[in-house]
Protein backbone atom coordinates (compact mmCIF):
# COMPACT_ATOMS: atom_id res chain seq x y z
CA UNK A 1 0.00 0.00 0.00
CA UNK A 2 1.45 3.36 -0.93
CA UNK A 3 1.17 6.59 0.98
CA UNK A 4 -1.75 7.91 -1.07
CA UNK A 5 -3.90 4.84 -0.50
CA UNK A 6 -3.04 4.91 3.18
CA UNK A 7 -4.09 8.52 3.29
CA UNK A 8 -7.44 7.72 1.70
CA UNK A 9 -7.98 4.81 4.04
CA UNK A 10 -7.23 7.00 7.07
CA UNK A 11 -9.63 9.68 5.85
CA UNK A 12 -12.34 7.06 5.44
CA UNK A 13 -11.64 5.82 8.97
CA UNK A 14 -11.97 9.31 10.45
CA UNK A 15 -15.25 9.86 8.63
CA UNK A 16 -16.54 6.55 9.98
CA UNK A 17 -15.63 7.51 13.55
CA UNK A 18 -17.38 10.86 13.19
CA UNK A 19 -20.48 9.20 11.79
CA UNK A 20 -20.42 6.58 14.54
CA UNK A 21 -20.35 9.25 17.26
CA UNK A 22 -23.11 11.31 15.69
CA UNK A 23 -25.21 8.18 15.22
CA UNK A 24 -24.66 7.18 18.85
CA UNK A 25 -25.83 10.59 20.00
CA UNK A 26 -28.86 10.53 17.72
CA UNK A 27 -29.63 7.01 18.91
CA UNK A 28 -29.42 7.99 22.58
CA UNK A 29 -31.46 11.15 22.21
CA UNK A 30 -33.96 9.44 19.94
CA UNK A 31 -34.41 6.60 22.40
CA UNK A 32 -35.04 8.96 25.32
CA UNK A 33 -37.21 11.41 23.42
CA UNK A 34 -39.37 8.94 21.46
CA UNK A 35 -39.78 6.54 24.34
CA UNK A 36 -40.36 9.31 26.83
CA UNK A 37 -42.83 11.50 24.99
CA UNK A 38 -45.59 8.92 25.22
CA UNK A 39 -45.43 9.08 29.01
CA UNK A 40 -45.69 12.84 29.19
CA UNK A 41 -49.01 14.36 30.03
CA UNK A 42 -50.21 17.40 31.92
CA UNK A 43 -50.93 15.21 34.95
CA UNK A 44 -47.45 13.71 34.84
CA UNK A 45 -45.96 17.20 35.12
CA UNK A 46 -48.30 18.61 37.72
CA UNK A 47 -49.06 15.76 40.10
CA UNK A 48 -47.25 14.29 43.06
CA UNK A 49 -45.79 10.80 42.60
CA UNK A 50 -48.27 8.00 43.10
CA UNK A 51 -47.79 5.39 45.71
CA UNK A 52 -45.76 2.94 43.75
CA UNK A 53 -46.51 0.00 45.99
CA UNK A 54 -49.99 0.22 44.57
CA UNK A 55 -48.54 0.47 41.07
CA UNK A 56 -49.64 4.07 40.61
CA UNK A 57 -47.45 6.19 38.40
CA UNK A 58 -48.51 9.66 39.46
CA UNK A 59 -46.44 12.65 38.45
CA UNK A 60 -43.14 14.32 39.03
CA UNK A 61 -44.19 17.83 40.07
CA UNK A 62 -42.33 17.93 43.42
CA UNK A 63 -39.13 16.52 41.88
CA UNK A 64 -39.26 18.99 39.03
CA UNK A 65 -39.75 21.82 41.47
CA UNK A 66 -36.95 20.51 43.72
CA UNK A 67 -34.52 20.36 40.80
CA UNK A 68 -35.10 23.98 39.85
CA UNK A 69 -35.21 25.23 43.44
CA UNK A 70 -31.97 23.44 44.27
CA UNK A 71 -30.39 24.93 41.17
CA UNK A 72 -31.40 28.43 42.24
CA UNK A 73 -30.19 27.93 45.82
CA UNK A 74 -26.87 26.58 44.55
CA UNK A 75 -26.44 29.52 42.19
CA UNK A 76 -27.17 32.02 44.95
CA UNK A 77 -24.32 30.53 46.99
CA UNK A 78 -21.94 29.81 44.12
CA UNK A 79 -22.15 33.00 42.08
CA UNK A 80 -20.64 35.49 44.56
CA UNK A 81 -17.86 33.12 45.60
CA UNK A 82 -17.26 32.05 42.02
CA UNK A 83 -17.07 35.62 40.72
CA UNK A 84 -14.84 36.66 43.62
CA UNK A 85 -12.55 33.71 43.08
CA UNK A 86 -12.48 34.22 39.32
CA UNK A 87 -11.56 37.90 39.70
CA UNK A 88 -8.78 36.96 42.06
CA UNK A 89 -7.40 34.36 39.68
CA UNK A 90 -7.57 36.67 36.69
CA UNK A 91 -6.46 39.97 38.25
CA UNK A 92 -4.81 39.66 41.62
CA UNK A 93 -3.04 36.29 41.49
CA UNK A 94 0.68 36.89 41.12
CA UNK A 95 2.93 34.06 40.03
CA UNK A 96 3.71 33.04 43.58
CA UNK A 97 3.77 29.71 45.30
CA UNK A 98 0.37 30.45 46.77
CA UNK A 99 -1.12 30.90 43.31
CA UNK A 100 0.41 27.61 42.20
CA UNK A 101 -1.11 25.92 45.23
CA UNK A 102 -4.42 27.57 44.47
CA UNK A 103 -4.42 26.27 40.92
CA UNK A 104 -3.65 22.80 42.19
CA UNK A 105 -6.60 23.08 44.61
CA UNK A 106 -8.93 24.08 41.78
CA UNK A 107 -7.68 21.20 39.67
CA UNK A 108 -8.19 18.67 42.45
CA UNK A 109 -11.60 20.04 43.27
CA UNK A 110 -12.81 19.98 39.69
CA UNK A 111 -11.88 16.34 39.28
CA UNK A 112 -13.28 15.07 42.58
CA UNK A 113 -15.78 12.27 41.95
CA UNK A 114 -19.23 13.59 42.79
CA UNK A 115 -19.91 10.65 45.11
CA UNK A 116 -16.97 11.83 47.25
CA UNK A 117 -18.54 15.28 47.47
CA UNK A 118 -21.79 13.61 48.44
CA UNK A 119 -20.07 11.64 51.21
CA UNK A 120 -18.36 14.76 52.52
CA UNK A 121 -21.77 16.42 52.57
CA UNK A 122 -23.23 13.43 54.42
CA UNK A 123 -20.54 13.71 57.07
CA UNK A 124 -20.56 17.46 57.52
CA UNK A 125 -23.97 18.73 56.44
CA UNK A 126 -26.17 15.79 57.41
CA UNK A 127 -24.58 14.01 60.37
CA UNK A 128 -22.40 16.66 61.99
CA UNK A 129 -24.90 19.52 61.82
CA UNK A 130 -27.79 17.21 62.66
CA UNK A 131 -29.89 18.70 59.88
CA UNK A 132 -30.65 15.36 58.30
CA UNK A 133 -31.28 15.30 54.57
CA UNK A 134 -32.01 18.87 53.52
CA UNK A 135 -32.21 21.06 50.46
CA UNK A 136 -29.67 23.35 52.10
CA UNK A 137 -27.23 20.47 52.50
CA UNK A 138 -27.79 19.50 48.88
CA UNK A 139 -27.24 23.06 47.69
CA UNK A 140 -23.98 23.33 49.64
CA UNK A 141 -22.76 20.00 48.25
CA UNK A 142 -23.61 21.14 44.74
CA UNK A 143 -21.73 24.37 45.45
CA UNK A 144 -18.57 22.36 46.09
CA UNK A 145 -19.27 20.50 42.87
CA UNK A 146 -19.83 23.70 40.88
CA UNK A 147 -17.34 26.19 42.38
CA UNK A 148 -14.19 25.21 40.48
CA UNK A 149 -16.12 25.34 37.22
CA UNK A 150 -17.58 28.76 38.04
CA UNK A 151 -14.19 30.17 39.02
CA UNK A 152 -12.73 28.97 35.73
CA UNK A 153 -15.63 30.44 33.73
CA UNK A 154 -15.25 33.86 35.36
CA UNK A 155 -11.47 33.81 35.11
CA UNK A 156 -11.54 32.98 31.41
CA UNK A 157 -14.21 35.59 30.69
CA UNK A 158 -12.22 38.33 32.45
CA UNK A 159 -8.91 37.34 30.89
CA UNK A 160 -10.59 37.53 27.49
CA UNK A 161 -11.41 41.23 27.98
CA UNK A 162 -9.26 43.27 25.52
CA UNK A 163 -6.20 44.65 27.26
CA UNK A 164 -6.58 48.18 25.85
CA UNK A 165 -9.94 48.63 27.59
CA UNK A 166 -8.40 47.82 30.93
CA UNK A 167 -5.35 49.97 30.28
CA UNK A 168 -7.45 52.91 29.09
CA UNK A 169 -9.47 52.76 32.28
CA UNK A 170 -6.38 52.56 34.48
CA UNK A 171 -4.81 55.43 32.56
CA UNK A 172 -7.80 57.62 33.43
CA UNK A 173 -6.84 57.20 37.05
CA UNK A 174 -9.64 54.78 37.84
CA UNK A 175 -8.56 52.33 40.48
CA UNK A 176 -7.99 48.69 39.83
CA UNK A 177 -11.09 47.50 41.67
CA UNK A 178 -13.31 50.04 39.96
CA UNK A 179 -11.82 49.09 36.61
CA UNK A 180 -12.71 45.49 37.35
CA UNK A 181 -16.27 46.12 38.45
CA UNK A 182 -17.18 48.99 36.13
CA UNK A 183 -15.24 48.18 32.94
CA UNK A 184 -14.13 44.58 32.84
CA UNK A 185 -17.06 42.73 34.44
CA UNK A 186 -19.64 44.24 32.05
CA UNK A 187 -17.50 43.30 29.07
CA UNK A 188 -16.93 39.82 30.48
CA UNK A 189 -20.60 39.38 31.29
CA UNK A 190 -21.62 37.47 28.13
CA UNK A 191 -18.93 34.89 28.77
CA UNK A 192 -19.91 34.58 32.40
CA UNK A 193 -23.61 34.21 31.57
CA UNK A 194 -23.00 31.54 28.93
CA UNK A 195 -20.67 29.62 31.21
CA UNK A 196 -23.09 29.86 34.11
CA UNK A 197 -25.97 28.48 32.08
CA UNK A 198 -23.86 25.56 30.89
CA UNK A 199 -22.83 24.89 34.50
CA UNK A 200 -26.48 25.06 35.49
CA UNK A 201 -27.18 22.24 33.06
CA UNK A 202 -24.60 20.10 34.82
CA UNK A 203 -26.05 20.85 38.24
CA UNK A 204 -29.54 20.11 37.05
CA UNK A 205 -28.64 16.55 36.12
CA UNK A 206 -26.34 15.77 39.05
CA UNK A 207 -27.44 12.93 41.29
CA UNK A 208 -24.57 11.17 43.07
CA UNK A 209 -23.70 14.20 45.21
CA UNK A 210 -27.33 14.51 46.26
CA UNK A 211 -28.21 10.94 47.29
CA UNK A 212 -26.76 11.40 50.75
CA UNK A 213 -27.26 15.15 51.17
CA UNK A 214 -30.66 16.23 49.84
CA UNK A 215 -32.00 12.73 50.29
CA UNK A 216 -34.07 10.46 48.12
CA UNK A 217 -37.54 11.48 49.23
CA UNK A 218 -39.74 14.51 49.18
CA UNK A 219 -42.41 15.36 51.74
CA UNK A 220 -45.96 16.03 50.62
CA UNK A 221 -45.62 19.56 49.36
CA UNK A 222 -48.39 22.06 49.70
CA UNK A 223 -47.96 24.35 46.71
CA UNK A 224 -50.26 26.97 48.21
CA UNK A 225 -48.05 27.47 51.26
CA UNK A 226 -45.12 29.74 50.42
CA UNK A 227 -43.95 30.40 53.97
CA UNK A 228 -40.34 29.12 53.97
CA UNK A 229 -40.51 28.06 57.61
CA UNK A 230 -43.48 25.70 57.21
CA UNK A 231 -42.66 22.01 56.95
CA UNK A 232 -44.83 21.36 53.92
CA UNK A 233 -43.83 24.54 52.14
CA UNK A 234 -41.96 23.93 48.91
CA UNK A 235 -39.64 26.81 49.78
CA UNK A 236 -38.47 25.42 53.11
CA UNK A 237 -34.71 24.89 52.65
CA UNK A 238 -34.54 22.47 55.57
CA UNK A 239 -36.68 19.74 54.11
CA UNK A 240 -35.48 16.67 52.21
CA UNK A 241 -35.82 16.91 48.47
CA UNK A 242 -35.37 14.30 45.79
CA UNK A 243 -34.50 15.87 42.47
CA UNK A 244 -35.50 14.50 39.09
CA UNK A 245 -32.21 12.66 38.54
CA UNK A 246 -32.18 11.20 42.03
CA UNK A 247 -35.76 10.08 41.47
CA UNK A 248 -34.81 8.25 38.27
CA UNK A 249 -32.07 6.42 40.12
CA UNK A 250 -34.24 5.61 43.11
CA UNK A 251 -37.15 4.35 41.06
CA UNK A 252 -34.82 2.05 39.16
CA UNK A 253 -32.93 0.79 42.15
CA UNK A 254 -35.74 0.06 44.56
CA UNK A 255 -39.03 0.42 42.86
CA UNK A 256 -41.35 -2.47 43.29
CA UNK A 257 -42.84 -2.71 39.85
CA UNK A 258 -40.55 -2.58 36.85
CA UNK A 259 -43.39 -1.34 34.68
CA UNK A 260 -44.03 1.68 36.87
CA UNK A 261 -40.28 2.27 37.05
CA UNK A 262 -40.02 2.21 33.26
CA UNK A 263 -42.82 4.74 32.84
CA UNK A 264 -41.67 7.06 35.61
CA UNK A 265 -38.01 7.02 34.65
CA UNK A 266 -38.75 7.18 30.94
CA UNK A 267 -40.86 10.28 31.41
CA UNK A 268 -38.44 11.85 33.89
CA UNK A 269 -35.47 11.21 31.61
CA UNK A 270 -37.38 12.91 28.79
CA UNK A 271 -37.95 16.03 30.89
CA UNK A 272 -34.38 16.00 32.18
CA UNK A 273 -32.93 15.79 28.67
CA UNK A 274 -35.27 18.50 27.41
CA UNK A 275 -34.26 20.90 30.17
CA UNK A 276 -30.55 20.19 29.69
CA UNK A 277 -30.89 20.63 25.91
CA UNK A 278 -32.74 23.89 26.42
CA UNK A 279 -29.97 25.11 28.71
CA UNK A 280 -27.33 24.22 26.12
CA UNK A 281 -29.20 25.79 23.20
CA UNK A 282 -30.08 28.86 25.23
CA UNK A 283 -26.46 29.35 26.28
CA UNK A 284 -25.27 29.05 22.67
CA UNK A 285 -27.89 31.42 21.29
CA UNK A 286 -27.29 33.95 24.03
CA UNK A 287 -23.56 33.78 23.45
CA UNK A 288 -24.05 34.29 19.72
CA UNK A 289 -26.54 37.15 20.22
CA UNK A 290 -24.32 39.02 22.62
CA UNK A 291 -21.28 38.42 20.42
CA UNK A 292 -23.11 39.83 17.41
CA UNK A 293 -24.24 42.86 19.35
CA UNK A 294 -20.74 43.53 20.59
CA UNK A 295 -19.09 43.19 17.19
CA UNK A 296 -21.68 45.11 15.15
CA UNK A 297 -21.58 48.19 17.33
Amino acid at each position, binding site marked *: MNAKQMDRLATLFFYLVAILIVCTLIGLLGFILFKGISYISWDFLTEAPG*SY*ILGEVGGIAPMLFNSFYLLILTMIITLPIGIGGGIYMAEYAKPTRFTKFLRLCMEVMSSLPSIIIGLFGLLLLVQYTGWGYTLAGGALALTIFNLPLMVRVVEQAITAVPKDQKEASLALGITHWQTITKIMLPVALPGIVTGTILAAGRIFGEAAALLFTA*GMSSPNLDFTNWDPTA*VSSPLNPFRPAATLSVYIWKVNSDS*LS*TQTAAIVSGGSAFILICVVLLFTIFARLLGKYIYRRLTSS
Partner: protein
Amino acid sequence: MKIKKRILASGLIGLAFSTVLVACSSTADNQNNKQLSGNLTSVGSTAMQPFVEEASKTFMSNNPGVQINVQGGGSGQGLTAAMNDTADLGNSDIFAEEKQKIDASKLVDHKAFVVGIAPVVNPNVGVTNLTQQQLIDIFTGKIKNWKEVGGKDQAIVLVNRSESSGTRAAFAKFALKDNKEFRGKGGIVEDSSGTVRKIIGQTQGAIGYLAFSYVDNTVKALTLDGVQPTNENVTTNKWKVWAYEHIYTNANGKNKPLEEAFIKYILSDEVQKGLVTKLNYIPITNMKVERDASGNVK
Protein backbone atom coordinates in the same frame (compact mmCIF):
# COMPACT_ATOMS: atom_id res chain seq x y z
CA MET B 1 -45.15 23.21 76.99
CA LYS B 2 -48.51 21.55 77.22
CA ILE B 3 -50.32 24.85 77.44
CA LYS B 4 -48.42 26.11 74.45
CA LYS B 5 -49.39 23.05 72.49
CA ARG B 6 -53.00 23.52 73.49
CA ILE B 7 -52.93 27.10 72.30
CA LEU B 8 -51.36 26.05 69.06
CA ALA B 9 -53.89 23.32 68.63
CA SER B 10 -56.84 25.59 69.30
CA GLY B 11 -55.42 28.07 66.84
CA LEU B 12 -55.28 25.37 64.26
CA ILE B 13 -58.84 24.39 65.01
CA GLY B 14 -59.86 27.95 64.43
CA LEU B 15 -58.02 28.01 61.15
CA ALA B 16 -59.30 24.82 59.72
CA PHE B 17 -62.54 24.52 61.62
CA SER B 18 -64.65 22.88 59.01
CA THR B 19 -62.06 20.39 57.83
CA VAL B 20 -61.29 19.33 61.38
CA LEU B 21 -64.94 18.72 62.08
CA VAL B 22 -65.35 16.62 58.98
CA ALA B 23 -62.18 14.69 59.71
CA CYS B 24 -63.16 14.10 63.35
CA SER B 25 -66.60 12.85 62.60
CA SER B 26 -65.54 10.62 59.75
CA THR B 27 -62.75 8.64 61.39
CA ALA B 28 -63.43 5.87 63.78
CA ASP B 29 -60.05 5.71 65.48
CA ASN B 30 -59.90 9.36 66.37
CA GLN B 31 -62.48 9.13 69.12
CA ASN B 32 -60.40 10.84 71.75
CA ASN B 33 -61.30 14.36 70.81
CA LYS B 34 -57.84 15.63 71.68
CA GLN B 35 -56.41 17.46 68.71
CA LEU B 36 -52.94 16.29 67.65
CA SER B 37 -50.45 18.64 66.14
CA GLY B 38 -46.76 18.82 65.39
CA ASN B 39 -44.19 17.27 63.10
CA LEU B 40 -42.89 13.74 62.86
CA THR B 41 -39.89 12.61 60.87
CA SER B 42 -39.66 9.05 59.72
CA VAL B 43 -36.37 7.74 58.35
CA GLY B 44 -35.16 4.33 57.29
CA SER B 45 -35.90 1.16 55.37
CA THR B 46 -36.63 1.83 51.73
CA ALA B 47 -38.78 -1.32 51.65
CA MET B 48 -41.07 0.16 54.30
CA GLN B 49 -41.02 3.71 52.96
CA PRO B 50 -43.99 3.40 50.57
CA PHE B 51 -46.06 1.74 53.29
CA VAL B 52 -45.26 4.43 55.86
CA GLU B 53 -45.90 7.13 53.27
CA GLU B 54 -49.30 5.72 52.47
CA ALA B 55 -50.24 5.29 56.13
CA SER B 56 -49.05 8.78 57.01
CA LYS B 57 -51.11 10.31 54.21
CA THR B 58 -54.33 9.04 55.76
CA PHE B 59 -53.09 9.85 59.26
CA MET B 60 -52.40 13.44 58.21
CA SER B 61 -55.78 13.86 56.61
CA ASN B 62 -57.37 12.56 59.82
CA ASN B 63 -55.23 14.94 61.89
CA PRO B 64 -54.77 18.13 59.91
CA GLY B 65 -52.41 19.62 62.50
CA VAL B 66 -49.87 16.88 61.95
CA GLN B 67 -47.10 16.81 59.38
CA ILE B 68 -45.26 13.54 58.84
CA ASN B 69 -42.08 13.71 56.87
CA VAL B 70 -41.24 10.28 55.46
CA GLN B 71 -37.72 9.64 54.19
CA GLY B 72 -35.90 6.56 53.00
CA GLY B 73 -32.20 6.15 53.57
CA GLY B 74 -32.03 2.50 54.61
CA SER B 75 -32.48 0.53 57.83
CA GLY B 76 -29.09 1.56 59.21
CA GLN B 77 -29.91 5.24 58.84
CA GLY B 78 -33.31 4.67 60.43
CA LEU B 79 -31.91 2.96 63.53
CA THR B 80 -29.16 5.55 63.96
CA ALA B 81 -31.57 8.43 63.56
CA ALA B 82 -33.99 6.99 66.13
CA MET B 83 -31.15 6.23 68.55
CA ASN B 84 -29.76 9.76 68.30
CA ASP B 85 -33.28 11.20 68.28
CA THR B 86 -32.58 13.04 65.03
CA ALA B 87 -35.72 11.40 63.66
CA ASP B 88 -38.82 10.36 65.56
CA LEU B 89 -39.49 7.10 63.79
CA GLY B 90 -36.73 4.80 62.59
CA ASN B 91 -37.93 2.13 60.18
CA SER B 92 -35.93 -1.06 60.01
CA ASP B 93 -36.14 -4.45 58.33
CA ILE B 94 -34.14 -6.03 61.12
CA PHE B 95 -33.97 -6.04 64.91
CA ALA B 96 -31.87 -3.26 66.43
CA GLU B 97 -30.04 -5.97 68.38
CA GLU B 98 -28.75 -7.43 65.12
CA LYS B 99 -26.83 -4.29 64.17
CA GLN B 100 -23.40 -3.40 65.51
CA LYS B 101 -23.02 -0.04 67.24
CA ILE B 102 -26.75 0.32 67.91
CA ASP B 103 -27.69 0.62 71.55
CA ALA B 104 -31.00 -1.23 71.56
CA SER B 105 -31.75 -0.13 75.12
CA LYS B 106 -32.26 3.42 73.88
CA LEU B 107 -34.90 2.25 71.44
CA VAL B 108 -38.47 1.05 71.68
CA ASP B 109 -39.46 -1.59 69.15
CA HIS B 110 -42.85 -1.46 67.44
CA LYS B 111 -43.44 -4.32 65.06
CA ALA B 112 -45.56 -2.94 62.26
CA PHE B 113 -46.20 -5.97 60.08
CA VAL B 114 -44.64 -9.19 58.85
CA VAL B 115 -43.29 -10.15 55.44
CA GLY B 116 -42.94 -13.72 54.32
CA ILE B 117 -40.00 -14.41 52.02
CA ALA B 118 -40.00 -17.21 49.47
CA PRO B 119 -37.31 -18.72 47.26
CA VAL B 120 -38.40 -17.89 43.74
CA VAL B 121 -37.32 -19.48 40.47
CA ASN B 122 -37.79 -19.10 36.75
CA PRO B 123 -40.89 -21.21 35.85
CA ASN B 124 -38.88 -23.32 33.39
CA VAL B 125 -36.37 -24.89 35.78
CA GLY B 126 -38.62 -27.89 36.33
CA VAL B 127 -38.47 -27.88 40.14
CA THR B 128 -41.30 -27.07 42.53
CA ASN B 129 -39.91 -28.22 45.85
CA LEU B 130 -36.51 -28.12 47.49
CA THR B 131 -35.27 -29.41 50.81
CA GLN B 132 -33.60 -26.85 53.01
CA GLN B 133 -30.25 -28.58 52.51
CA GLN B 134 -30.64 -28.35 48.73
CA LEU B 135 -31.47 -24.66 49.00
CA ILE B 136 -28.36 -24.09 51.11
CA ASP B 137 -26.22 -26.02 48.63
CA ILE B 138 -27.62 -23.97 45.76
CA PHE B 139 -26.96 -20.62 47.40
CA THR B 140 -23.50 -21.61 48.62
CA GLY B 141 -22.57 -22.76 45.12
CA LYS B 142 -22.27 -26.49 45.81
CA ILE B 143 -25.11 -27.32 43.44
CA LYS B 144 -24.57 -25.61 40.11
CA ASN B 145 -27.14 -27.23 37.84
CA TRP B 146 -30.88 -27.79 38.21
CA LYS B 147 -30.59 -31.44 37.12
CA GLU B 148 -28.81 -32.18 40.42
CA VAL B 149 -32.07 -31.45 42.24
CA GLY B 150 -34.32 -33.16 39.71
CA GLY B 151 -34.88 -30.30 37.30
CA LYS B 152 -33.82 -29.56 33.75
CA ASP B 153 -30.23 -29.48 32.58
CA GLN B 154 -29.80 -25.75 33.19
CA ALA B 155 -27.06 -23.81 34.96
CA ILE B 156 -28.25 -22.11 38.13
CA VAL B 157 -28.11 -18.28 38.12
CA LEU B 158 -28.27 -16.73 41.58
CA VAL B 159 -30.01 -13.39 42.10
CA ASN B 160 -29.17 -11.85 45.46
CA ARG B 161 -29.88 -8.69 47.41
CA SER B 162 -27.02 -6.51 48.64
CA GLU B 163 -25.10 -7.47 51.79
CA SER B 164 -26.76 -4.86 53.93
CA SER B 165 -30.30 -5.72 52.83
CA GLY B 166 -32.78 -6.83 55.48
CA THR B 167 -34.49 -9.31 53.16
CA ARG B 168 -31.15 -10.95 52.49
CA ALA B 169 -30.36 -11.07 56.21
CA ALA B 170 -33.69 -12.79 56.96
CA PHE B 171 -33.28 -15.23 54.07
CA ALA B 172 -29.74 -16.11 55.13
CA LYS B 173 -30.79 -16.61 58.72
CA PHE B 174 -33.95 -18.65 58.34
CA ALA B 175 -33.75 -20.26 54.90
CA LEU B 176 -30.02 -20.91 54.81
CA LYS B 177 -29.65 -21.45 58.58
CA ASP B 178 -26.93 -18.77 58.74
CA ASN B 179 -24.66 -20.93 56.63
CA LYS B 180 -21.16 -19.48 56.71
CA GLU B 181 -20.44 -20.52 53.13
CA PHE B 182 -23.13 -18.19 51.80
CA ARG B 183 -21.28 -15.33 50.18
CA GLY B 184 -23.71 -14.07 47.55
CA LYS B 185 -21.17 -14.87 44.85
CA GLY B 186 -22.13 -15.57 41.27
CA GLY B 187 -25.12 -14.20 39.42
CA ILE B 188 -26.16 -10.70 40.23
CA VAL B 189 -27.04 -8.44 43.15
CA GLU B 190 -30.03 -6.14 42.78
CA ASP B 191 -31.77 -4.02 45.36
CA SER B 192 -35.09 -3.58 43.67
CA SER B 193 -37.67 -6.32 44.18
CA GLY B 194 -39.21 -5.38 40.84
CA THR B 195 -35.89 -5.88 39.04
CA VAL B 196 -35.21 -9.14 40.89
CA ARG B 197 -38.59 -10.45 39.74
CA LYS B 198 -38.01 -9.29 36.18
CA ILE B 199 -34.57 -10.90 35.98
CA ILE B 200 -35.77 -14.18 37.44
CA GLY B 201 -38.73 -14.19 35.07
CA GLN B 202 -36.53 -13.61 32.03
CA THR B 203 -33.40 -15.60 32.84
CA GLN B 204 -33.29 -19.36 32.34
CA GLY B 205 -32.19 -21.16 35.47
CA ALA B 206 -32.48 -18.12 37.77
CA ILE B 207 -33.26 -18.37 41.48
CA GLY B 208 -33.65 -15.61 44.04
CA TYR B 209 -35.87 -14.62 46.93
CA LEU B 210 -38.80 -12.23 47.15
CA ALA B 211 -41.35 -11.09 49.64
CA PHE B 212 -44.65 -12.91 49.03
CA SER B 213 -46.28 -9.73 47.82
CA TYR B 214 -44.03 -9.57 44.75
CA VAL B 215 -44.57 -13.15 43.63
CA ASP B 216 -46.70 -13.21 40.48
CA ASN B 217 -47.18 -15.58 37.56
CA THR B 218 -43.95 -14.58 35.80
CA VAL B 219 -41.96 -16.41 38.50
CA LYS B 220 -42.52 -19.48 40.62
CA ALA B 221 -42.32 -19.64 44.42
CA LEU B 222 -40.88 -22.93 45.67
CA THR B 223 -42.17 -25.02 48.51
CA LEU B 224 -39.52 -25.79 51.09
CA ASP B 225 -39.52 -29.31 52.57
CA GLY B 226 -43.08 -29.55 51.30
CA VAL B 227 -44.33 -26.45 53.14
CA GLN B 228 -46.26 -23.92 51.06
CA PRO B 229 -45.13 -20.30 51.30
CA THR B 230 -48.46 -18.85 52.36
CA ASN B 231 -49.48 -16.15 54.81
CA GLU B 232 -51.27 -18.76 56.98
CA ASN B 233 -48.13 -20.86 57.30
CA VAL B 234 -46.18 -17.79 58.35
CA THR B 235 -48.59 -16.92 61.15
CA THR B 236 -47.96 -20.34 62.74
CA ASN B 237 -44.22 -20.32 61.89
CA LYS B 238 -44.70 -23.47 59.80
CA TRP B 239 -43.06 -21.40 57.04
CA LYS B 240 -39.96 -20.15 58.82
CA VAL B 241 -38.62 -17.60 56.38
CA TRP B 242 -40.24 -14.35 57.45
CA ALA B 243 -39.26 -11.09 59.05
CA TYR B 244 -40.78 -8.33 61.11
CA GLU B 245 -40.83 -4.81 59.78
CA HIS B 246 -40.05 -2.55 62.71
CA ILE B 247 -40.74 1.04 63.56
CA TYR B 248 -38.33 2.11 66.29
CA THR B 249 -38.80 5.14 68.49
CA ASN B 250 -36.37 6.70 70.93
CA ALA B 251 -37.00 5.69 74.54
CA ASN B 252 -36.83 9.36 75.54
CA GLY B 253 -38.15 10.79 72.31
CA LYS B 254 -39.15 14.44 72.21
CA ASN B 255 -42.44 13.86 70.42
CA LYS B 256 -43.80 11.03 72.58
CA PRO B 257 -47.57 11.70 72.36
CA LEU B 258 -47.56 12.11 68.62
CA GLU B 259 -45.32 9.08 68.10
CA GLU B 260 -47.62 6.97 70.20
CA ALA B 261 -50.68 8.17 68.34
CA PHE B 262 -49.11 7.31 64.99
CA ILE B 263 -47.94 3.86 66.14
CA LYS B 264 -51.39 3.23 67.55
CA TYR B 265 -52.83 4.12 64.19
CA ILE B 266 -50.41 1.75 62.41
CA LEU B 267 -51.44 -1.07 64.73
CA SER B 268 -55.14 -0.27 64.42
CA ASP B 269 -57.48 -2.50 62.45
CA GLU B 270 -57.90 0.25 59.88
CA VAL B 271 -54.27 -0.10 58.77
CA GLN B 272 -53.66 -3.76 59.62
CA LYS B 273 -56.82 -5.02 57.93
CA GLY B 274 -56.70 -2.31 55.29
CA LEU B 275 -53.36 -1.19 53.91
CA VAL B 276 -51.25 -4.10 55.22
CA THR B 277 -53.63 -6.70 53.81
CA LYS B 278 -54.08 -4.80 50.58
CA LEU B 279 -50.32 -4.84 50.01
CA ASN B 280 -50.30 -8.58 50.71
CA TYR B 281 -48.17 -8.22 53.81
CA ILE B 282 -49.13 -10.12 56.95
CA PRO B 283 -50.89 -8.12 59.68
CA ILE B 284 -49.02 -8.23 62.97
CA THR B 285 -52.34 -8.91 64.66
CA ASN B 286 -52.67 -12.23 62.80
CA MET B 287 -49.42 -13.65 64.12
CA LYS B 288 -49.92 -16.62 66.41
CA VAL B 289 -46.23 -16.84 67.31
CA GLU B 290 -43.62 -14.34 68.33
CA ARG B 291 -39.95 -14.35 67.55
CA ASP B 292 -37.21 -12.46 69.37
CA ALA B 293 -34.05 -10.90 68.03
CA SER B 294 -32.01 -14.08 68.36
CA GLY B 295 -34.58 -16.09 66.43
CA ASN B 296 -36.28 -17.97 69.30
CA VAL B 297 -39.96 -18.58 68.64
CA LYS B 298 -42.58 -18.46 71.37
